[in-house]
């Protein structure tokens, strides 16, 4: 007498017959399936950073791909690896997504060597977003240090497209030196068309720099903050959070109206691998966008 245990082919599940929709987190799907995407243009920004415009090849997959400001994707070079990169294009741009990448490791180094037309994989979007919907009717402070401007680009596009929803919008951007300022070619547009107040500062001025010199906190002297009517988004190196968020909370801005984006080395983006786990918090699922109250209670976050 022999016995055959029944087979279960999970490919036969209805949800498995479609490309994954990462916005439907509870559904069983091909979570490892990346959307094949073409690098349609590469914009060199500095010696270390390039902006990649990436277009999902399949029209249906492209149409279905929707994200919110602050979310990230896992960018994959098959055979090389996968890295989390925050999306820095407009949520309404259905043609391509923009990913600004600094050359720091194996995958990003290889990415920098790619030519226009190369095919990469993306999975996502993943993670939490800046709650633009809660900020309606408020002033918004967007504060970036260094590479922190990258995740702010998406909310900046959002404010342009929903300008009347918000009151005053101020961008404060500090970089180490003028050569490291990203997206300066867009600043005029942000000022004139988006109606943003745009303040920049560098720590070390070069020869041709006529702007402000100092730490980002210097910029607070030039803005009046109404703590009862303001939201803040702060992105940059963790050390900056303490000073900037500390200053804002001294002014009376509630910590739950300050949002930061944390960086960890996720391997999955889906709350599984634990590489970005701190206790019960997963930077990939519960973050990367956190309010500052949560961050303060998150051991080792910054």
């Amino acid at each position, binding site marked *: 007498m022999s016995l055959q245990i029944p087979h279960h082919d999970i490919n036969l599940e209805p949800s498995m017959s479609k490309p994954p929709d990462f916005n439907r987190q509870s559904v069983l799907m091909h979570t490892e399936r990346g959307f094949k995407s073409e690098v349609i243009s590469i914009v060199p920004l500095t010696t270390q950073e390039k902006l990649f415009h990436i277009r999902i090849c399949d029209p249906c997959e492209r149409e279905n791909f929707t994200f919110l400001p602050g979310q990230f994707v896992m960018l994959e*070079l*098959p*055979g*090389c690896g996968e890295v989390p990169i925050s999306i820095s294009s407009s949520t309404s741009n259905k043609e391509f997504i923009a990913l600004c990448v600094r050359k720091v490791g*194996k995958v990003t*180094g*290889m990415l920098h*060597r*790619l*030519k226009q*037309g*190369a*095919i*990469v994989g993306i999975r996502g979007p993943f993670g939490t977003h800046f709650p633009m919907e809660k900020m309606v009717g408020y002033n918004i402070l967007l504060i970036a240090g260094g590479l922190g401007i990258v995740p702010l680009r998406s909310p900046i596009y959002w404010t342009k497209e929903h300008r009347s929803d918000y009151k005053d919008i101020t961008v404060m951007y500090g970089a180490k030196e003028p050569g490291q300022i990203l997206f300066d070619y867009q600043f005029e547009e942000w000022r004139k068309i988006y109606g943003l107040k745009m303040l920049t500062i560098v720590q070390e001025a070069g020869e041709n720099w006529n702007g402000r010199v100092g730490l980002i906190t210097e910029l607070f002297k030039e803005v009046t903050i109404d703590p009862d009517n303001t939201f803040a988004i702060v992105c940059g190196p963790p050390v900056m959070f303490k000073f900037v968020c500390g200053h804002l909370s001294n002014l009376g801005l509630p910590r739950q109206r300050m949002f930061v984006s944390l960086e960890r080395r996720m391997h999955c983006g889906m709350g599984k691998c634990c590489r970005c786990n701190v206790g019960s918090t997963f930077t990939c699922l519960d973050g990367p966008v956190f309010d500052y109250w949560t961050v303060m209670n998150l051991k080792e976050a910054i």
Partner: protein
Amino acid sequence: MKYLGITLERPKIGVFSFTGCEGCQLQIANKEETLKDLFGVVEVVNFREISSEGRDDYEIAFVEGSITTESESARVKKIRKQAGTLVAIGACACLGGVNNLKSRFSLPDVVKEVYGTHPIDTGPVRKVKDVVRVDIELPGCPISKPEFEWLVRHLILGIEPQFLQYSVCVECKQRLNSCVFDMGMMCLGPITRAGCNAVCPRNRLGCWGCRGPAEEANFESLMEILRERGFSEEHIAERMNFFNAFGGIL
């Protein structure tokens, strides 16, 4: 050869042998199922083990063995001059290896014992990096062929290889081996760099540390454990010094 649209060059390589058993070279020439592919992606211009022809226009030099004579020292310096990348392969080249046993005795005594009155050019055992600058060290006694191929891929891609930082225990547990400590044996697995797939513990033999120390290995704790388990100082020292992998600890 293309990868994600990037054109990859086929590098010219040389494989050179110094004091050692030539087992690492054999590893490279081994494993027929991928040998054809290997010679497809690199151009071998100097490799005595497989070809008597030898050219000196190699870009990458793989150096096996430790440096124990003056003529070897001069030869490896010449190789260093030619090679853009010099890779030390195997325990002898990276650590001194078993050869280093010689360094524990006085040199004249060793020469007399082994060679009698026969004149011989031999000096203290040196790691390759003690003689010339080494770009990459591929550990193991012998090296593992899959790891060698992994390294070759990195060299072709121009990516810095990241060797496993953790110790042999991870791979040993992953193979569901019985811990040789439970069977009363000594093992240096907890402080030795992984990458060998725990081949010795797999065969019920404690690790001898041929791959050198794991990153930030906790020597003090393992020493305490070995002593608590009743291993003698002499036994511990013999094991630790075998490949000269943990120099300066005892």
